[in-house]
């Protein structure tokens, strides 16, 4: 074994905040915590077989699968995926970590995140990873199993749609 896996506790401490930010963007804060539990429990189960070189991409892949499962079980219940209001963090909520800033935590941003919820899943994941988790395009690609170029294109397409539905996105498109 060339590279050793860090103790799971170390892995958890490092990746909890970014994975939480990703899932909040993918399923909304209400359901993010449940998906987060499922993600890290699945990660713990599979951990001895994990690829130590890119654990972030590995755990984000698990998280994305959990988000897809979540949407599937939701659509069976025929409920909307994300209500704009639920994407606004309530003060004193159980959120922690510093990555919420990019997640539309002010009412001004809620319309944007309602539009994010309407995006096709691949574009949604890419735009959330780019702006809520603050990954570079190369890292977005690694997490989604696509090339850097495809990641860039997905984010670009997503931003185009978002610009069309909300006029206040320019500040995000750094």
């Amino acid at each position: 074994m060339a590279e050793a896996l860090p103790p799971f506790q170390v892995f958890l401490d490092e990746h909890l905040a970014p994975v939480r930010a990703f899932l909040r963007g993918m399923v909304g804060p209400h359901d993010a915590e449940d998906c987060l539990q499922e993600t890290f429990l699945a990660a713990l189960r599979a951990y001895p077989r994990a690829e130590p070189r890119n654990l972030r991409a590995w755990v984000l892949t698990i998280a994305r699968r959990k988000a897809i499962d979540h949407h599937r079980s939701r659509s069976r219940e025929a409920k909307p995926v994300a209500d704009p209001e639920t994407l606004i963090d309530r003060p004193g909520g159980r959120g922690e970590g510093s990555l919420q800033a990019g997640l539309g935590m002010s009412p001004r941003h809620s319309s944007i995140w309602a539009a994010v919820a309407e995006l096709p899943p691949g574009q949604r994941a890419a735009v959330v990873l780019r702006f809520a988790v603050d990954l570079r395009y190369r890292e977005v690609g690694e997490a989604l199993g696509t090339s850097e170029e495809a990641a860039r294109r997905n984010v670009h397409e997503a931003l185009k749609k978002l610009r069309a539905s909300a006029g206040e996105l320019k500040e995000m498109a750094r």
Partner: protein
Amino acid sequence: MSEFVDRLVARASEEGLLDVAYATVDTPLGEAAVAATPRGLVRVALPNEGVDRMLARLAADVSPRILEYPARLDEARRELEEYFEGRRDHFELQLDWRLSHPGFYRKVLRATSRVPFGEVISYREAAERAGNPRAFRAAGTALSLPSAAPA
């Protein structure tokens, strides 16, 4: 610890996914740490070793499925605290011996773990009690390796 992590660790333990649990212990010498598998106490890190190094070694030697879970180490922490407060001179903990080298080294550790508190024996005597009086150098080596058996 956050509510999220508490819930995760409890579920991991229930589902048998927690191979190693650890906790830190304040001692007069600094922060020590104890680690246990489901079989028993597997490792003690004295302050000079440090928690991070202990965890890295456990990840390599036992399993990377390691989480901080003080509840599983209540008894070990209590006995260590009492020991450092001078209220305890022997330990009653279940031990997981897997990190001690099998064979003679392990026999030496088992023999020295039966030496009563405050009594000193030589490496030669340790070797003798482990069944090979001439192997006193090996006994010295055995006792310089990190393991959980408290002397």
